[in-house]
């Protein structure tokens, strides 16, 4: 029983440590690079969004303050926005015709 309790405590501590582990600068750099690459792709399609630029700027600002959790969250948001703008540009290649006046 004692062994079981100790094991449970160790597991609990380990889980808590991993869940609460602060993000590092390296994690931020990875997330930011992914977001920038996705936004570059949208740029190649001439369809970047201002919201993406804002999220990228927010990510950088948070990283400069050393708040890498917030920075990574913003970078991930930027990546999602950039991917959405790419999807929009791709689907609109044909979809625009539905709005045309005939």
């Amino acid at each position, binding site marked *: 029983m004692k062994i079981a309790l100790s094991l449970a405590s160790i597991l609990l501590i380990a889980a808590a440590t991993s869940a609460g582990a602060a993000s590092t600068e390296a994690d931020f750099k990875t997330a930011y690079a992914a977001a920038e690459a996705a936004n570059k792709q949208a740029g190649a399609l001439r369809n970047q969004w201002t919201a993406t630029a804002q999220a990228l700027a927010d990510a950088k600002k948070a990283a400069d303050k050393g708040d890498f959790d917030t920075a990574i969250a913003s970078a991930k948001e930027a990546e999602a*926005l950039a991917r959405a*703008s790419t999807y929009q540009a791709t689907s609109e290649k044909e*979809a625009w*015709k539905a709005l045309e*006046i005939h």
Partner: protein
Amino acid sequence: MNLRSAIHFASAALALAFGAVPFAVASDTIDPVADAKAFQNFFTQKFPKLKPEDFVNGPYSLNEDMHRQWEEKEQFPPYEFALDLGKELFAKPFKNGKTYADCFPNGGIGIRQNYPYFDEKEGKVITLELALNRCREANGEAPFSYVKDEMAALTAYMAFTSRGKPFDIKIPNDPRALEAYQNGKRYFYTRRGQLNFSCASCHVQNPGERIRAEILAPALGILNGMPIYRSEWSGMGTTSRRFTTCNSQIRGVPLEPQADEYRDLEYYLSYVSNGLPISGPGARP
């Protein structure tokens, strides 16, 4: 399968084949004349009380109260300062002694209705704003910003000298011109920005409706009144300013002013308003 059903099957297949091909081609055919006709019909049917030439005054034609406000405004028009500045800039010689008049047909007077045009040598659309800056550069002057007051003033003056002349945009018999037209049309109808709006979302689907405090202008005749004094901007705005602002309002990153896409868009929008008079410079809320 007996003979009769075989014949029916064959005829159906033939009908389908011959019927389907022209349809598929028709939907992808670029036909600016038919487009302009359909475009103008759409707006005249949507606003049956308006005469075609009323569309060039944008939202002021769609609402009686606003129309009265506009008539009063026109007595002391807010673009008058820009007009004076434009006239002065237009006449002022460059350092080499030449003027804008040397760069344009008819000395630049009364020619607004022919811009933009397709330059077959270059294979691209040339807008009036672009032609003005090229004129400056060819004469050793630095180009003006496409979104600031000097360009608005110059185009205001040139538009004023063309007031009442119908838009007369030509599409030469050159596949590149047709492609530019089609690219402009595609740009006009393509949704973009985080708000997922196209130009048509506001100016085809919702003219006359309010978006916040603004009454949306119809796309027909929308460029005839350019450049415009906008109360919202507390100043003059060029076509470039209008396009880039539209993009940022829908949370899209604007392209650089006079990007090919904007030049093609101006070509398309001007062409489908052919026959409607130039009314610029205009004033808008």
